[in-house]
């Protein structure tokens, strides 16, 4: 009770307003709401990643070898080209030793003074008194040049049997894995930015017939089908694949095309990731106040000048965040390198070392000493990703996201295209979008085929792969495991996402921005770095016998990793829901005597339940298809493998591509169902990865 009795003698104690703010704001409920996300993020994000970041120093201390040498060794930064970027193979030369006798296994030829002498299959080459002769199967005998040292077996098309040149595109591949990773990431980002900007601009600023269909088509590449999408790209561009078939057998050109190695990785990543840029750019452009562009036009800016001076700068937030995410995704991608067997990339080297350590089982050397090199490489990838993230974090923040998704304040400035514009759209954009959607379409075909080794799939359509998945425990267990893991992760995600979003949206205290950064950061943190961090943490010998021990129970680490990595989708959805819900709804309840927790359950949750649900569904979907941690730590225990790890196994061990395809179909089906539920039933926005 106060002693105030009125009158002037009353003294007012001046308390610092910060201490009052803390006292007023920090009731037990709010403290709990702050502690939950801070604690979870600290335990499962900050500490493991911190461990990764300092591991080079720990390696130096514990293992006694210089982390510098691990980084500067030639297989990390070596600049020797390992293979020509493009090779053209026209035939194979078979060396001949004078005096020996040879029988040609197939048609071939030799060159004599620039003249080509054709030799059919079965021709015998022999020497008589030092002079080579060719004896044809029909008995004809001709003399060959004295200096004959080889015979050429020309390369032949598997489709026509005619001679053909095999053009193999390898891409630029150096000795150094870090160098390769950076070049790949930069290339993929640059191409994705150009493509994303073009597609985003066309969709944001022009109307044309069939636009809805185009927009749906442009979203197909975002359906996540790890491994299966890369398998399809590899098949499309194999020397006996459909593209070669088209060029060689349909067009009749004497060429076969084979995209492999780094080039294949880049190609797969570009088609997988460009829609991330496109969607971000599109959202940004839809947010631009049309009067800004109109004003610039009034001042005389038109065409490209208008785009360069007004439209582009204003859509920079979307462009930058899209580009940054593509760069980081490319850096940490594993599906492409594994399918194209391109092992000279940093992400693959980390994966290889950790999965070997895990498959090798628990040994005396646990934790850092089991994977010293992988930890150092992970520290590099993480440092790069964090640098990128910090430089664009304001564009990725919850606040920015809520602003970008609001939109619709004005009629966007879209112009109907004329005939010429329609021609361009149909002749250039449509084929491109179809091409970009090819992996997912291909996965559908692959999953329903008996097998697909040549130019076209065999036995399409058949449900035999699904029947096999349904009956083989090794296969269906993966599906069930992933469902269980993802569902468990979603429960953690709802707790994490709701508390984080609530605190950022409703608690007004200095320093809350840190939580916004923490809650958003998993979008930009390489999964492979998280996998490394979890291995370092959960492989410690003192955990032996506990459910956390990663060699025996990868399931727990997997669930936590899914929860952390996929939480931003839910956090963002809930945050957007909170911003749309006027705080007076909660204030009215508190005025009537409802405690904050009571208000949460009776007012806030019923009001934003739909946001929570749709966010959780998105997180669920992306947990199902999570790759990096699934295949690194998920391989430890055969019984606990998630779906993606089974896909990896099926690909590498038994080369059952069609099973991988069928599993991809399952993932696509889950994603499509979720999209329909979220947009049609819950009437919410489906937030694609990175958007």
């Amino acid at each position, binding site marked *: *009770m106060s002693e105030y009795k009125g009158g002037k003698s009353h003294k007012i104690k001046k308390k610092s307003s910060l201490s009052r703010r803390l006292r007023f704001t920090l009731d037990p409920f709010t403290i709990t709401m702050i502690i939950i996300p801070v604690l979870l993020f600290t335990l499962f994000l900050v500490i493991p990643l911190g461990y990764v970041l300092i591991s080079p120093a720990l390696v130096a201390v514990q293992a006694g070898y210089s982390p510098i040498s691990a980084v500067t060794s030639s297989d990390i930064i070596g600049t020797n080209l390992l293979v020509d970027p493009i090779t053209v193979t026209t035939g194979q030369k078979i060396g001949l030793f004078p005096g020996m006798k040879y029988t040609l296994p197939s048609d071939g030829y030799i060159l004599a003074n620039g003249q080509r002498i054709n030799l059919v299959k079965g021709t015998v080459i022999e020497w008589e008194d030092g002079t080579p002769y060719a004896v044809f199967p029909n008995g004809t005998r001709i003399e060959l040049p004295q200096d004959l040292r080889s015979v050429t077996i020309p390369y032949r098309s598997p489709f026509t049997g005619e001679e053909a040149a095999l053009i193999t595109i390898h891409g630029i591949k150096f000795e150094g894995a870090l160098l390769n990773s950076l070049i790949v990431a930069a290339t993929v980002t640059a191409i994705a930015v150009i493509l994303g900007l073009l597609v985003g601009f066309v969709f944001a600023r022009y109307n044309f017939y069939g636009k809805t269909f185009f927009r749906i088509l442009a979203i197909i590449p975002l359906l996540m089908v790890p491994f299966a999408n890369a398998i399809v790209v590899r098949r499309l561009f194999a020397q006996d694949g459909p593209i070669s078939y088209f060029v060689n057998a349909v067009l009749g050109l004497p060429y076969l095309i084979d995209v492999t190695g780094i080039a294949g990785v880049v190609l797969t990543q570009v088609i997988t990731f460009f829609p991330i840029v496109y969607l971000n750019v599109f959202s940004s452009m839809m947010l631009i106040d049309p009067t800004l562009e109109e004003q610039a036009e009034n001042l005389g800016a038109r065409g490209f000048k208008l785009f360069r001076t007004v439209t582009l700068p204003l859509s920079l937030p979307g462009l930058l965040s899209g580009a940054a995410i593509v760069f980081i995704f490319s850096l940490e991608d594993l599906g492409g390198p594994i399918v194209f067997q391109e092992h000279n990339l940093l992400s693959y080297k980390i994966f290889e070392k950790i999965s070997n350590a895990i498959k090798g089982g628990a040994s005396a050397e646990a934790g850092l000493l089991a994977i010293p090199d992988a930890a150092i490489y992970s520290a590099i990838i993480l440092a790069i990703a964090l640098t990128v993230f910090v430089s664009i974090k304001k564009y990725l923040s919850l606040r920015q996201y809520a602003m970008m998704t609001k939109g619709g304040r004005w009629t966007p400035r879209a112009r109907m295209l004329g005939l010429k514009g329609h021609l361009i759209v149909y002749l250039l954009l449509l084929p491109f979008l179809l091409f970009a959607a090819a992996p997912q379409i291909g996965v559908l075909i692959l999953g329903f085929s008996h097998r697909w080794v040549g130019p076209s799939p065999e036995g399409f359509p058949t449900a035999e792969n699904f029947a096999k998945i349904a009956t083989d425990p090794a296969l269906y267990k993966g599906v069930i495991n992933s469902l269980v893991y993802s569902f468990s992760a979603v429960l953690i995600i709802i707790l994490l996402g709701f508390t984080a979003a609530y605190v950022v949206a409703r608690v007004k205290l200095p320093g809350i921005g840190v939580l916004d950064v923490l809650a958003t950061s998993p979008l930009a943190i390489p999964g492979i770095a998280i996998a490394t961090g979890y291995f370092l943490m959960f492989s410690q010998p003192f955990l032996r016998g506990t459910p956390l021990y990663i060699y025996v129970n990868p399931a727990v680490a997997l669930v936590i990793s899914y929860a952390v990595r996929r939480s931003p989708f839910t956090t963002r959805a809930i945050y957007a829901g909170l911003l749309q819900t006027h705080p007076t709804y909660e*204030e009215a309840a508190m005025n009537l005597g*409802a405690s904050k927790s009571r208000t949460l359950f009776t007012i806030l949750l*019923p009001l934003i339940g739909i946001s929570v649900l749709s966010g959780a569904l998105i997180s669920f979907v992306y947990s199902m298809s999570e790759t990096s941690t699934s295949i690194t730590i998920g391989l430890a225990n055969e019984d606990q493998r998630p779906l993606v790890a089974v896909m990896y196994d099926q690909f590498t061990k038994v080369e059952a591509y069609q099973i991988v395809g069928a599993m991809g179909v399952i993932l696509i089906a889950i994603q499509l169902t979720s999209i329909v539920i979220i947009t049609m039933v819950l009437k919410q926005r489906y937030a694609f990865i990175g958007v």
Partner: protein
Amino acid sequence: MTEVRLVEVTKRFGEVVAVDHVSVTIKHGEFFTFLGPSGCGKTTTLRIIAGLEFPDEGSVFFDEEDVTMKRAYERKAAMVFQNYALWPHMSVFDNVAYGLKLKKLPPEEIKKKVEWALELVGLKGMEDRYPTQLSGGQQQRVALARAIVVEPRVLLLDEPLSNLDAKLRLKMREELKTLQMKLGITAIYVTHDQEEAMSLSDRIAVMNAGKIMQVGTPKEVYESPRNLFVATFIGKSTAVMGKADEIAGDRATITTPDGFKLRGRVAVGYKLSRGEEAVAIIRPEDFELEPPRVDHNVIEGVIEISMFLGPYNRLKVRTGKQVISAYVDPDISFKQGDRVKLYIPVDDVILFPAKGWEYIAYEAVA
């Protein structure tokens, strides 16, 4: 019933001082209004009383209890929000019953009380509707019922009528006053509408820039404004500048640049000295058309505009450099350019020192 006392309450938002050392006592069962232009700090003051904000400095008392750091749910101060904040996922019944359920009353009693409250606000029979099925006025009544049904110590109203159309606003205004008197509850009201404030309140606190400019009954603030802000913000007024010459007690005379002499009373709490620049504040309705034979308080000028507004004619009269606004008998017609003589009774002229006038001037309502 509760007495609410604010002592030196100060609230800052960053660099902005929203509420600046506000001290006021709101009596038991009083209908008290914070009146001021938007951004003057009145809503923040109300939210501090509600416990939705805390003051950076100062204290809030409910009777003898210091509630400064008590949270909203510990205060029993029910608020009616500007946007009503009816929960869209609950029916009218559930909205009104919410506070009662928190008190864990038996269901029959809750039902009885909700029915009582809904009847009081004239919404009997609407229990099962949802907020979206109600008109603005009905939503307003539900919000009111939801607040009074819990029998709060203080009823807080944040511009509750501002979202209603003009006609409904007048009706609700009367109902609100009747209801408050019937319940005998302490009500604290926030508005920027002076007519609303005048008609509803027992007392008004006029606020500007976070400070209370004057506290008083509607009659006091209208007839005896304590400063130029109140004088010009409350009611319509016209200002005439001049130089003070004769000063006798609380009376003084000023001479305008055009040579007119205006005698009036010096505002309470102020002093004028000879030769000081002064402002005479005159209500437009206090001008008279037929001056008595005196040598002061008569202003002559040329009519610039004459507007017929029903109960009176509104004249804009130019006298030299100044323009004054006067409401006069509508039966006498004027046209532009006519010369006119206007008389103002000495008691209706309030004189202020001109210091600070430049700042107020553009906000003056004439």
